[in-house]
């Protein structure tokens, strides 16, 4: 190795070291918005203990060169402990998750907390503004990007990919030990109290079981989802589904809050008793989610309710044309429980009519890969 190369090698190692200790400090841009300091990087270890800190995280720039700012709350405990990440609004039409994060922080006393809680409120900024699942990106007119297929993001990717990259690398990594990405069904569907949990991550399963939900779907992880990116980064995490889109449903919000309280109890972040968990609710742990997609278009009546037990061959929905003539009938393709129902009566080809959580032999080694939209 010649001297130049050797110097380069030394420099490179030094740079690599700096990169790995990137969370040396919270970076304040000097901007303040709505009385909150703007940060471009978070290091929870910087923050004063026993307090709730509120920031606006500088995300990606928009088409005009202005920026999207994501509200962030950090409850920093007075003792060391687990650092829990709670994310809401990766899909902008899913509002119960925002209600959960806001309520958790409203009730949080950081002087009685060990560890930290990091809340992300509405990460898909344009999605939340327009109550839409997709993030409107201006390439070739318009396209709607599903943010929950862009994680862990790409540094020099498109707007949404870069936004995910910034959140993952400047906010989440190095600051979170465990994470919950909170969702609901999207526009036109309703979801049971449900989790998507990566079967490869035992702690993610444990975390899921702490929530008072009715169904746990163990699967192979969905590429591009925040939950998969957390697990890949060594942060046990899962996707929680709390009902339907658009509004605040207090029962669903409370289920999320009770689950977070159970996480506090289990990890000794707070001195509190364990409340009702998934196991107390006799939750079904399944390994396959069978989606019944519309085979035709028309007005659809669904005969089953969420979490109802169904048997294979049972008629679950009927679809009619404008004259009231039946164009298709839908039958359960497996024994299991209803996880998702379509709520928009007008159902186009390819949209979800009913999804059933089940256990199948072919998926028994860690669950089948999930390829649906949720």
């Amino acid at each position, binding site marked *: 190795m010649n001297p130049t190369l050797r110097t380069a090698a030394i420099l490179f190692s030094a740079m690599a070291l700096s990169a790995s200790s990137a969370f040396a400090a919270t970076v304040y841009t000097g901007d303040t918005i709505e009385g909150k300091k703007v940060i471009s990087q978070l290091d929870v270890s910087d923050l004063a203990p026993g307090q709730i800190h509120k920031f606006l995280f500088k995300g990606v720039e928009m088409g*005009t060169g*202005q920026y999207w700012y994501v509200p962030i709350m950090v409850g920093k405990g007075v003792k060391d402990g687990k650092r829990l990440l709670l994310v809401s609004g990766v899909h902008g039409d899913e509002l119960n998750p925002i209600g959960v994060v806001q309520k958790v922080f409203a009730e949080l006393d950081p002087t009685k907390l060990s560890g930290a809680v990091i809340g992300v409120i509405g990460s898909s900024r*344009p999605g939340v*503004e327009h*109550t839409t699942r997709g993030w409107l990106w201006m390439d070739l007119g318009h396209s709607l990007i599903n943010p929950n297929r862009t994680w862990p993001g790409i540094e020099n990717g498109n707007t949404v990919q870069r936004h995910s990259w910034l959140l993952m690398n400047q906010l989440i990594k190095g600051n979170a030990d465990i994470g919950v990405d909170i969702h609901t069904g999207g526009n036109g569907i309703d979801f049971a109290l449900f989790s998507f949990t990566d079967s490869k991550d035992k702690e993610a399963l444990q975390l899921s079981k702490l929530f008072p939900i009715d169904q746990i779907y163990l699967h192979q992880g969905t590429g591009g989802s925040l939950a998969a990116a957390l697990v890949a980064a060594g942060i046990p995490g899962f996707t929680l589904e709390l009902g339907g889109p658009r509004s605040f449903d207090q029962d669903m919000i409370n289920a999320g809050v009770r689950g977070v309280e159970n996480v506090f109890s289990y990890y000794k972040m707070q001195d509190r008793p364990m409340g009702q968990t998934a196991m107390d609710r006799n939750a079904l742990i399944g390994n396959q989610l069978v989606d019944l997609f519309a085979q035709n278009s028309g007005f659809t009546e669904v005969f089953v309710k969420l979490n109802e037990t169904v048997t294979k061959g049972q008629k679950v929905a009927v679809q009619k044309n404008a004259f009231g003539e039946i164009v298709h009938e839908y039958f359960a393709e497996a024994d299991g429980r209803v996880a998702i129902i379509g709520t928009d009566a007008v159902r186009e080809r390819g949209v979800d009519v009913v999804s059933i959580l089940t256990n199948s032999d072919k998926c028994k080694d860690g669950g089948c890969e999930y390829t649906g939209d949720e």
Partner: protein
Amino acid sequence: MNPALRMAAIVFPVLAFTASSAFAATVYTGEMIQDKRVISQLDVTDLEPGKMHRFMFRGAETSTGQYWYVPVIVAKGAKPGKRILFVAGNHGDELNPIAAVQATFATLDPTTMSGTAIALIGPNRSGVENISRTWTINVLGGEQVNPNRTWPGREDGNTVERHSWLITNKLILGNVDIGIDHHTGGTGIDFARFVFAYANDPESLRLGGLFPVDQIMEDPGLPGTLEYALVKAGIPAITTELGGSRGFVTDMVKLGVDGNANVLAHYGVVPGPVGKTAADMNAFVGNDLETVSAVAGGFVTLLVKLNDPVVEGQKIAVQRDGFGDVVHEYVSPATGVIAIVGTDAATDRGTEIATVLVKRASCNDGQCDDGGIVP
């Protein structure tokens, strides 16, 4: 009058006085965004003379309770003089105006100016981000509001109405003597080099003539436009049209820059001569717009170009269906010049195919309408 009423009568004039001198001060919210101070109210008399000032103006709140911030540039001259407002991006898909106003301000030297230039870059925040004419509000699943029908705004109106009200009352009134609202044609149409000026305001007509355009419409005033709201508030104003939508077109940007420079020179804000004007371009001055709208769906072939003179009855466009069969032929409804052409070949019923600027004796004094579609 009982004592309480008398007291109220004394208090009321005091309150009214306070309201009329509302621009007592620039209000800094204490926020900083991209190193710019955020203001919720502007008073240019507060600002240091001979300097360029940059702010983020806090507009209406978004549906999440965050806010839209509009970039504002104030070039305050070393000496007093006329205060001129340049607005770009009232419609979000009209981009030449933004380049023109940015280029104008890049050349300004406030130390040699007498008076003030104020720039509003993209007040329709939602529209500029989405490159759309309208501002999408979150009512009943989404509704698109044309911001240039909301001026002077309403204090407790919907998001767009309130945004316009804030800009009118907290930024424009008390700070502006002359106003220019720069536009282009919207998505799917192309506009000639054109100015709308209110027919009954000689100062606005003079202002319009300072732009080296090919066509001027002496308009009757269209309620809800920024131009008309300014004129009604005693501020001479015009609407310019600088070509087509979406892109930066060098010639059209230059038209805006040249006109802006003429305005600044004419009012003595910037030293120097006035350059080429509408009169030098031998501009056609009309007082009526006749719009030809599609009466069927289909692919449209235009037979005329912008600025072409046309006579009443002249065939100007042919529309065909998918098989290439003619479904309709369009003729000019009047004699005049082509001000607007449709550029999207696939044409829905009711959309614009072409618009003709017409001069009618019967329309003197702004008695005719504006075709109902523009600006």
